[in-house]
């Protein structure tokens, strides 16, 4: 891309951002038609679209490359939420559309594609994504545009961030690490080997895990940081086995885990217990690791510590039905990240209804209010229920498919963790008992 074009896009992005900021909402407007960016950077009125123009949720994720499953997950979450919202008449009459923007999982591609989204998306009211590798480069651009951004990144650097547009729908890795340590110790393992890949999303768990595990009386007999996707991990596997750990704890991407664990099976003649972070229940892990080491072996030895999922009730049924209607793999219904993203989109839609406004600058303050468990609040499980309660003048507490989503002052919805094991019979991950917050410490 030429420098001129970059500048042009940046100027357009700033213009779009300015137009959003400048736009206001009439709190009494039932049409709630002001505010969202138009394709030309204008407002709904400016575009002359009346009361039923479509709103856009920009799905900003990797859709190609090794992290493409992130994009597919978010795309399905968005489509499923849009099905439910549009079936209930849209957001104040405006249908919600999902548009995909491919970051390719590369920060260098992510920024230009974000700028393109900001100038081209019609009435952009929220951004879904991006993932952990792209967010450091993209977040400043999104903050400037002042569009709410829904993510599931684990990076603890965002634990105390203060941007009003940053909404983390799943817990931080800083809360995952104690859960990982607690479960490991609670299983009776006192000597473990720690294996994390060198990428940022894995590395954010290592130090808090080490601290908590040693507080719980455990010892790490071997700590390895491996480079993802190399041709072999034979030497690393031999080093781990030489330390005689009772279990392996860590985080590895799908390809790395498949190679590492299959080489361990070959050298050791079988596996030892493997306790992974939430990365293991992401959609690409089982298809890679299962065949490489054998699905029964994976089911027997691998446990993932991941956010808990409600997995039953009205909200979950509505979510599951919406996934079916868009012909998504039902495997995703049991993925807490897919469910949380779906909940996040419904939450933002309800915030617009609460504010009676589609201007992000106005409704963003209502996002945490629609999921806050206040006394006297009506608990709602679907978008339609939420709209009906709001129209009746009630305060709502949306408890969605993934369960309660209560945002803290830093825009993070912390949730409990649970161990997940793979069921060969069910072809899916199954959740176990909830783990105590902060390892009970």
């Amino acid at each position, binding site marked *: 891309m030429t420098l001129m074009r970059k500048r042009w896009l940046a100027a357009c992005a700033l213009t779009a951002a300015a137009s959003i900021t400048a736009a206001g909402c009439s709190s009494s407007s039932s049409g709630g038609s002001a505010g969202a960016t138009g394709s030309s950077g204008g407002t709904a009125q400016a575009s002359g679209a009346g009361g039923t123009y479509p709103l856009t949720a920009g799905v900003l994720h990797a859709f*190609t*490359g*090794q992290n*493409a*499953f992130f*994009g*597919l997950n978010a795309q399905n979450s968005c489509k499923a939420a849009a099905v439910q919202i549009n079936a209930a008449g849209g957001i104040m009459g405006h249908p919600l559309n999902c548009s995909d923007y491919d970051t390719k999982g590369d920060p260098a591609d992510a920024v230009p594609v974000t700028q393109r989204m900001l100038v081209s998306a019609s009435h952009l009211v929220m951004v879904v994504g991006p993932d952990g590798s792209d967010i450091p480069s993209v977040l400043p651009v999104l903050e400037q545009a002042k569009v709410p951004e829904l993510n599931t990144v684990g990076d603890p650097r965002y634990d105390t961030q203060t941007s009003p547009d940053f909404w983390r729908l799943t817990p931080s890795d800083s809360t995952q690490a104690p859960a990982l340590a607690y479960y490991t110790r609670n299983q009776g393992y006192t000597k473990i080997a720690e294996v994390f890949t*060198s990428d940022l999303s894995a590395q954010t768990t290592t130090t808090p895990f080490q601290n908590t595990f040693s507080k719980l009386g455990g010892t790490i007999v071997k700590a*390895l*940081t*491996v*480079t993802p*996707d*190399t*041709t*072999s*991990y*034979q*030497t*690393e596997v*031999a*080093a781990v086995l*030489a330390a005689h750990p009772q279990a392996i704890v860590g985080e590895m991407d*799908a*390809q790395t885990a*498949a*190679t590492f*664990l*299959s*080489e361990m*099976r*070959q*050298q050791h*003649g*079988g596996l030892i217990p493997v306790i992974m972070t939430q990365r293991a229940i992401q*959609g*690409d892990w089982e*298809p*890679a*690791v299962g*065949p*490489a*080491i*054998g699905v029964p072996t994976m089911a027997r030895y691998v446990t993932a510590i991941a956010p808990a999922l409600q997995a039953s009730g009205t909200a979950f049924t509505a979510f599951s039905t919406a996934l079916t209607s868009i012909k998504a793999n039902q495997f995703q219904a049991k993925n807490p990240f897919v469910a949380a993203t779906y909940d996040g989109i419904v939450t933002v839609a309800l915030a617009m209804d609460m504010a009676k406004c589609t201007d992000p600058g106005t409704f963003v303050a209502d996002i945490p209010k629609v999921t806050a468990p206040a006394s006297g609040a009506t608990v709602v499980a679907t978008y339609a229920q939420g709209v009906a309660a709001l129209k009746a003048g009630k305060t709502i507490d949306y408890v969605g498919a993934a369960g309660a989503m209560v945002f803290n002052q830093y825009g993070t919805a912390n949730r409990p963790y649970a161990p997940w094991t793979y069921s060969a019979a069910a072809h899916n991950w199954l959740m176990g008992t909830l783990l105590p917050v902060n390892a009970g410490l």
Partner: protein
Amino acid sequence: MSQIVLSLGFGLVTASILALGAVGFTLQFGVTNLFNLAFGETMTVSAFVAYLAMVSLHWNLWWAMAAGGAAGMVLSLLISRLVYLPFLRRGTSQFAMVMVTVAVSFILKNVLQIFSGATYYSYQLPPERPIRILGMVFDARQLTIIGLAAASLLGLHLLFKYTRLGKAMRATSDNGPLARSVGIPTDRVVSAAWLLSGLFAGIAGVALAVDLGTFGSTTGGSYLLPIVAAAVFGSVGEPYGAVLGALVIGLASEVAANYDPQLKDVVAFAILVLVLLLRPDGLRAGRVQMRAEVTA
């Protein structure tokens, strides 16, 4: 010490796969002078063809590998004839040709992703009993891959030394116009080089997928860098040098992993940089047998 010996064994397996790839890459460069960055995707396509042969036709791994090798040959020849040759005939510059190969790489990668989805595949091979040799640990499949690499390289050596085709390849590589003027059908020799390169790419792709345990649409491309590094290490266009490069990179990276797994690539590529500093044209510069003029 025992860990180092173990690493040497693991390094041999890695080096064998790298050698198959690096020889295929350098062989084709030697005859055509084209730096083909779509080589990794040829490996991936071959891995998928072998997968289909195993899953759909229920062939065993080694027949499936043969199918992968054949697919590599066909794809390699098709790409050269349908894409590269028209550009070369128009006198496209070498730099522009590299970009054409990058474009082919992207096209193949994305087409593969469309058909394969964003997921992984595995030959689902059952575990095998470890075999201990001189303190090193292998399984039967790894020993077969090492043997296959050795046999392929020996076959290539015999081809160069004792066959008319091999001698014609060396002549074409050394001086294409002169080879043509003495009646060598350089067009066919170049085609043969693409076929052979594709065969090596195919076998390397399947061997890589076996060793990794799983593969996807980006697998071959991800491993192109060490393959190119091995080829550059030993002087691009020089198959014996590529074998040497593969051995050094494979062994050095595994031994380095004993100290810190993150040193794997650091040590391997530091050695590469050091060699290039001392010998800018690679370790076997001046002994190049396959360097060439483009043509056809």
